[in-house]
């Protein structure tokens, strides 16, 4: 299932967050949207999910126009940067939520839901933690619960907003490799947003570089580093090796952890 953005425009007052963006995330691919903070990448993702309105343009999921369809009917999986787990529910209840809220006619029986939750928790390697509450888990564990919850309803599209942004450097590296493996196992189209150049280049099939609401370049990792289409792309990807702590301050992610990563490099 592909995701298509056609001339998508989004404004906040007089500020243009997205300026006539045309983009296709191909079926089965893992596409990264990479850009500095304020480049409009999260807006793009939220518009695809139906969480934010758009001033102009269209969104197609697998060729079908979903521009005016509310988010709850689009059947996309969404993973939030800060997990957005339901704090008052156990891990198992969180994962089961998407199955529980279905109308009775299409809902699985309770035993079926339990079995599915068990499978999902096994898939994200959290088998034994179903009875815990989110505040009893580490950041990495929470993000895996969020992923399991998003996958429970078997969406064909997975949208991830800075999925590893709030995690420390080592966990981030492990999780992104693990995400890549998971993506390959599932038959799913993934679009993920990040400000971390290494993350985008390492994990994604294709990388979209976004700057001030416009697409600077789309390509596989090698193309971007060998033949950057603009000074911005060259500079931004070059920054991956040099000034990452500064970027991280701009993006609001943990500077100390970014600093550690730099020192480790």
């Amino acid at each position, binding site marked *: 299932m592909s995701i298509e953005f056609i001339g998508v425009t989004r404004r906040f007052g007089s500020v243009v967050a997205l300026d006539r963006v045309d983009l296709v995330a191909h079926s089965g691919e893992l596409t990264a949207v990479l850009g500095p903070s304020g480049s409009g990448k999260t807006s793009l993702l939220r518009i695809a*999910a*139906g*969480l934010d309105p758009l001033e102009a343009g269209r969104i197609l999921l697998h060729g079908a126009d979903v521009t005016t369809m*509310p*988010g*709850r009917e*689009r*059947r*996309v*999986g*969404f993973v*939030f940067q*800060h997990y*957005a*787990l*339901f*704090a*008052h*529910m156990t891990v198992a209840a969180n994962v089961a*939520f*998407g199955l529980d*809220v*279905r109308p009775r006619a299409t809902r699985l029986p309770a035993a079926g839901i339990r079995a599915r939750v068990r499978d999902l928790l096994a898939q994200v390697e959290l088998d034994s933690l179903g009875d815990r*509450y989110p*505040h009893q888990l580490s950041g990495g564990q929470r993000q895996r619960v969020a992923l399991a*919850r*998003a996958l*429970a*309803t078997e969406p064909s599209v997975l949208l991830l907003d800075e999925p590893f942004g709030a995690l420390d450097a080592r966990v981030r590296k492990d999780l992104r490799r693990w995400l890549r493996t998971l993506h390959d196992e599932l038959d799913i189209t993934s679009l993920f947003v990040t400000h971390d150049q290494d993350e985008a280049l390492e994990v994604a099939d294709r990388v979209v570089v976004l700057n001030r609401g416009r697409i600077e370049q789309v390509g596989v990792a090698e193309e971007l580093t060998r033949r950057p289409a603009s000074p911005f792309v060259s500079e931004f990807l070059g920054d991956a090796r040099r000034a990452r702590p500064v970027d991280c301050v701009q993006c609001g992610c943990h500077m100390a952890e970014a600093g550690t990563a730099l020192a480790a490099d």
Partner: protein
Amino acid sequence: MSSAVHASVAGGVAWPASPSRAEWERRLLIAAAMAFVGAFLVLPLAFVLASALRNGFAAYVTALADPDALAALRLTLVVVAVAVPCNCVFGIAAAWAITRFDFRGKNALVTLIDLPLSVSPVIAGLVCVLVFGQRGWLGPSLEALDVQVIFAVPGIVLATTFVTVPFVARELIPVMQAQGRDQEEAALLLGASGWQMLRRVTLPGVRHGLVYGVILCTARAMGEFGAVSVVSGHIRGVTDTLPLHVEMLYNEYQFTAAFAVASLLVLAALLVVVVQSLFDRRRRAASPA
């Protein structure tokens, strides 16, 4: 409010170097606080109970079994049963709208929610009379429909509801602000309807604030005097709530009966405090946050 006080007290203070002097200061402060609470809170309450029982338990029971006292109790419960749910619905709706959306008049709405706290309850009752009274705006049309609001139960309910508007909304706004939109958006994208989102994600997430709001709202609705006094008309056994009944008995020099009925309100207040502290303890045990 009380949780904030607990937090600041438990926050820990670094005492100065001289331990004996610090200890002395600490005891003095505690003693002052205790004396104040004793003089202004515990003593009057004890006095109410003592006065109620002065002529023996039998007299106490007789005073409470009086038909007019029972009618006042029943009316008070009716008022609570209507006013609290109304303000619950309004408080949830207002807090949700205020914390989730930007709209014209939002600041005005926030200010207006506080209005009943800043306006004297007597004014609130008077406003009701001006709107619904016989010579008020809606008086003639209400009379044509044969509906009596002022000097009747509907007026008492209206006045109490007006006075207790802020409690639920005020408690919910900060907790809903802290809760944020993330969990609601996640619920919607997982296929939940608006109602499912509210019932299974939003409200359980703010249940502590909601319970506090309901407790405060109930306490105030039971005890409201000023606004109700203006609209009630003081018809014994018909439009008399517990606080009004206490005043009436007192003015008639029926001190034992007055204090006996007053003791019901005191017991209700104590119950509220106990429920609140139990709830507080359970909540602290449940989550480390």
